[in-house]
């Protein structure tokens, strides 16, 4: 039997495998292609914006105020506005979002109401941002009488972020194994102590990553800010919570819609600044995750 097989060469079922391997190689190539298409698109987009922007990207652009003359127009109020917005949004969205996640994951009893809340949070994460803008306009700008202010914009963005922060935090909380919680209980800790000293320190990298990624998304949001009435021409820096404001995406949107070619160059420069900022934030998220994970494993 064995000698016969040796002389007869590989049998039919062995040669069949060649076809399988071919399909496999084809599939891995297709996957690679699928990976490259978005990467190349992103690179082309960024490269195109960068090429247009280079002549305008200087210190004066970053520290200048808007102007009727494209060559002297700067982005400072938008940059500062975006920074304030992010800070205020994070201050509102993080405690609320993480708190809600802790409640849902650790305290809530699994009943109909909890399920309903969970489904709604997932739905809210998918609601278009302009709807949040309309809600913010009605609730914060008019209802609370905050006007078209920085704080109204931040509150609207915080609403937009909440579902994302809640879901990311819940995912992170779920990664803490039951065995560690039990270890805490067995040492005579109550539930809050276990959450505070065992669960939260362990899932901090995950929660932080989720928060930073959400915030990075929020700085690119334009629609809700336009809806609540962020200004497009601001020649001053916001000096209080109720001060009018503008933000990077708004400024870019404004410049793009101008007829003069010079403003389009400004828009490209603004895009590069915005993308760099987002890249910086995402980088920070990755850095924090790696650093904290090294500590926990």
């Amino acid at each position, binding site marked *: 039997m064995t000698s016969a097989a040796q002389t007869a060469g590989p049998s039919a079922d062995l040669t069949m495998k060649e076809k399988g391997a071919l399909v496999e190689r084809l599939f891995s190539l297709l996957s690679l292609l699928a990976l490259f298409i978005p990467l190349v698109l992103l690179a082309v987009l960024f490269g195109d914006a960068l090429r247009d922007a280079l002549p305008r990207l200087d210190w004066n652009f970053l520290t200048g105020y808007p102007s009727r003359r494209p060559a002297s127009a700067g982005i400072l109020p938008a940059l500062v506005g975006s920074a304030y917005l992010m800070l205020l949004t994070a201050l509102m969205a993080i405690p609320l979002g993480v708190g809600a996640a802790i409640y849902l994951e650790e305290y809530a009893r*699994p009943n109909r109401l909890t399920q309903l809340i969970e489904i709604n949070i997932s739905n809210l994460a998918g609601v278009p941002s302009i709807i949040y803008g309309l809600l913010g306009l009605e609730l914060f700008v008019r209802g609370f009488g905050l006007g078209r202010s920085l704080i109204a914009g931040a509150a609207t963005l915080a609403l937009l972020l909440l579902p994302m922060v809640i879901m990311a935090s819940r995912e992170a909380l779920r990664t803490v*194994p039951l*065995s*560690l*919680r*039990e*270890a*805490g*209980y*067995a*040492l*005579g*800790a*109550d539930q809050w*102590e*276990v959450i505070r*000293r*065992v669960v939260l*320190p*362990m899932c901090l990298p995950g929660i932080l990553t989720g928060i930073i990624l959400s915030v990075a998304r929020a700085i690119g949001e334009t629609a809700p800010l336009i809806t609540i009435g962020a200004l497009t021409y601001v020649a001053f820096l916001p000096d209080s919570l109720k001060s009018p404001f503008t933000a990077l995406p708004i400024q870019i949107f404004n410049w793009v819609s101008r007829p003069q070619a010079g403003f389009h160059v400004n828009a490209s420069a603004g895009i590069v600044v915005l993308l760099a900022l987002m890249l910086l934030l995402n980088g920070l998220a990755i850095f924090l995750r790696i650093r904290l994970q090294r*500590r*926990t*494993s």
Partner: protein
Amino acid sequence: MNAFFSTARNREQPDAGPSLREKLRSEELKAWFGDAIALKGISLSIPEKAVTAIIGPSGCGKSTFVRCLNRMHEVVPGARVEGRVHLDGTDIYDPRVNPVRLRRRVGMVFQKANPFPTMSIRENVLAGLRLQGIRPGRGGELVERALTQAALWNEVKDVLDRSGSSLSGGQQQRLCIARALALEPEVLLMDEPASALDPIATQKIEELVYELKASFTIVIVTHNMQQAARISDRTAFFMLGTLIEIGDTKDVFMNPKEKMTEDYITGRFG
């Protein structure tokens, strides 16, 4: 059958048998997971400063039983307990008893070593105090005593600030024992503490159990019958949520009263 009795037990007899003062007693203890019953009414007595082993096939309720002794069973969602457990004559299921306070007197070591990964070795030992809101500082003396009791001090005394998860599996389990001992409990519950360890690490844990019984009441769950025979004074055999037999370990292994016990320990099923 004599092969069961080896090493630790025959080496020396520091105290002539257990004191036999009752430390824990369960009465008609029943436990459920949702609708599934796991314990069908267990009544047994656990003597002070002795090792009581709980043996039985998988799913017989032995883990559930020890988890009822410090009210850890109710931590699982949907889990429920009926009946009484007396600790020094006090019913721990009395509604006035705070399970958090109880667990400081009845410590527990789990099957899988579970040191807190975000804490150093030192912090792990002090975790029980910290979790209760006590600030022990660096807790030098306490850390050394607990780690010495857990037979780990010599191996880790120079690396106390390294992460607890940097240790080997057996060391991690002894760290968990030290963490439980740092609270100076009266009872130590051990749920298959050596089942995930290699034979050498297992032997260390067994020797440790033998030494600890001078100061603590120990209840140990094991699926390893030789282990039960080697380290325990009393053995209880569980099956399908009921207590089949309990007695002095020697009697249970040499002259089991029940046919089922005999079948199990001679390996006819299990």
